[in-house]
């Protein structure tokens, strides 16, 4: 059974189509990065998966219909919807008490263990914590839940680089094992590049790229072309070209590695560059990069 299975997923707000027939399948044990420009439909897609919004089309999450079975689904699904959704009046100890009270898979000792690594005090209220500490607290709560699917929507927005790095490090080291599935959206694409196993680009409610990171590696090459070879390289029909320090950097889809190696330095493109190339081509023009 796939963790998330959607076909023909559609959602419109009035005349604005947020999701335009999305088909997706996320297998168990994957870490999927859902990347897209602002307003592409990422959050709408996640909201549909989490049972926060009604939709058209077929969608099953862990075999359940999220819209009608949200409360049951939430036993096995966790999400951090945003950095600042913990109620500001809540004390850390109250958050722990409440989760023990209502969540069958919450392990208080585990949460205490994660919190012990931070400087968060038990009797603090959320409003007294810094933004980074609130994110740490939320992550500690979520990681102490033995869930099958974790959904993160811009979990590190507005955090400094230290907190961001720590966030993904603890997620990988302390939480992820091959039986869990994580879906994450973020604009800090490069920071999660090494974390992901799968990559999905979404633009204007449609999925424009959907492949594993291994496939990305095998499929795309970025070449910093020697100036003399530029015309020859361009003849190989790169999907995207940009200038870096006066040199042409060309991105190829399924290029011939040997042929490309002769033209310059070949490496794996960063997700951000791939994103710009794919979304830029989609739009027929270069949109704002997701950096």
């Amino acid at each position, binding site marked *: 059974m796939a963790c998330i299975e959607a076909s023909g997923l559609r959602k419109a707000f009035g005349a604005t189509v947020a999701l335009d027939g999305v088909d997706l399948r996320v297998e168990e044990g994957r870490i999927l990065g859902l990347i897209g420009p602002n307003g592409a439909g990422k959050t709408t897609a996640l*909201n549909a998966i*989490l*049972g*926060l*919004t*009604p939709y058209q089309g077929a969608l099953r999450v862990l075999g359940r219909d999220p819209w009608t079975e*949200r*409360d*049951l*689904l*939430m*036993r096995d*699904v*966790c*999400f*951090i*919807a*945003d950095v*600042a*959704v*913990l*109620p*500001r*009046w*809540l*004390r850390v100890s*109250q958050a722990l*008490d*409440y*989760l023990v*009270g*209502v*969540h*069958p*898979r919450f392990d208080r000792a585990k949460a205490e263990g994660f919190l012990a690594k931070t400087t968060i005090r038990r009797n603090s209220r959320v409003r007294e914590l810094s933004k980074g500490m609130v994110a740490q607290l*939320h992550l500690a709560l979520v990681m102490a839940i033995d869930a099958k699917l974790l959904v993160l929507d811009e979990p590190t927005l507005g955090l400094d680089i230290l907190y961001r790095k720590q966030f993904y490090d603890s997620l990988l080291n302390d939480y992820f094992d091959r039986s869990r599935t994580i879906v994450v959206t973020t604009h800090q694409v490069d920071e999660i590049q090494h974390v992901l196993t799968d990559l999905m680009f979404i633009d204007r409610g449609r999925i424009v790229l959907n492949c594993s990171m291994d496939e990305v590696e095998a499929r795309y090459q970025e070449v910093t072309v020697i100036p003399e070879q530029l015309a020859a390289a361009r003849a190989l029909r790169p999907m995207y070209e940009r200038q870096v320090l006066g040199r042409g950097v060309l991105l190829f889809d399924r290029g011939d590695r040997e042929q490309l190696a002769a033209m310059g330095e070949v490496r794996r493109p960063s997700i951000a560059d791939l994103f710009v190339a794919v979304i830029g081509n989609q739009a027929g023009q270069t949109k704002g990069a997701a950096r």
Partner: protein
Amino acid sequence: MNMQSNVMPEALSQTETAATVTIPASRRMLWSVRRELWEYRSIYLAPAAVAVLFLIGFLINLFHLPGRMHAAGGSAPMQQFEMIAGPYNSASELLIMLSTFIVAIFYCLEALHGERRDRSILFWKSLPVSDLETVLSKACIPLVVLPLVTFAITVVTQFAMLMASSAMLLATGQSAAPLWAHLGPLPMWLGLLYHLVTIHSLWYAPIFCWLMMVSAWARRAPFLWALLPPLAIAIVEKIAFGTAHFGELLRDRIAGAPMPGTASAGFGPMKMPVMMLSPAGFLISPGLWVGLALSAIFLLVAVRLRRYRGPI
């Protein structure tokens, strides 16, 4: 012995794993109600503060009691009753008005609006608690918790007042017996409890549930949205038919007025001996059941709205 001790831990761990898979709805409800008390501390702080203020005023006033009791010795029993019971009635009335009604109104308007305004609804919805459970746990506050809190605080306050009065009377060489005889604390408190359950919980239920529905629906200014529709209906009725039935209906609802079996508006609960209140008459009044049916509809709409509404 050995065998038993071998069996026991296994049985324990089995029940433990069974318990970790599901949590009974009653426990989720209980914790959700506790959560409301964490968030809205005015539920118990406001009536407690009023009680303390009243007690201070009462203690100052107490110095005149011996003289009043002395003067009341010769007057008619009913006047005597009024004089002695006066402060006790106004104490409980004040507390009821303030805590059960005002706090309840503001709580209901905030209950399903605040969580959307501060986006915390996204956190609450990430937990395995259904919208129905959430709305019901919030409805428990004005319908169950506030009347009980009011009752407990009023009883404690009035008991403290009685003890202080008695001590004062004894200290000045008078008997405290007439005070206790006239007041009769037990029937007084039973009457209070009856009043709280019938009026503040059951009779007012549609008001509270309406407010909760509006707080789940309104994007902003739930207070205005709660007031405008009833006002509009009353005005349209006045213009169209020249009548004021809807307004009268609302007035009766808020005043708890033409209710068979209970005290009329403005007539304190403690002035009615318990025996005169007829629970049967209250239970068969159509106003009660129509109100409860409306309450159920309002709550179900609120549940549905909470499911659809996200942060604002």
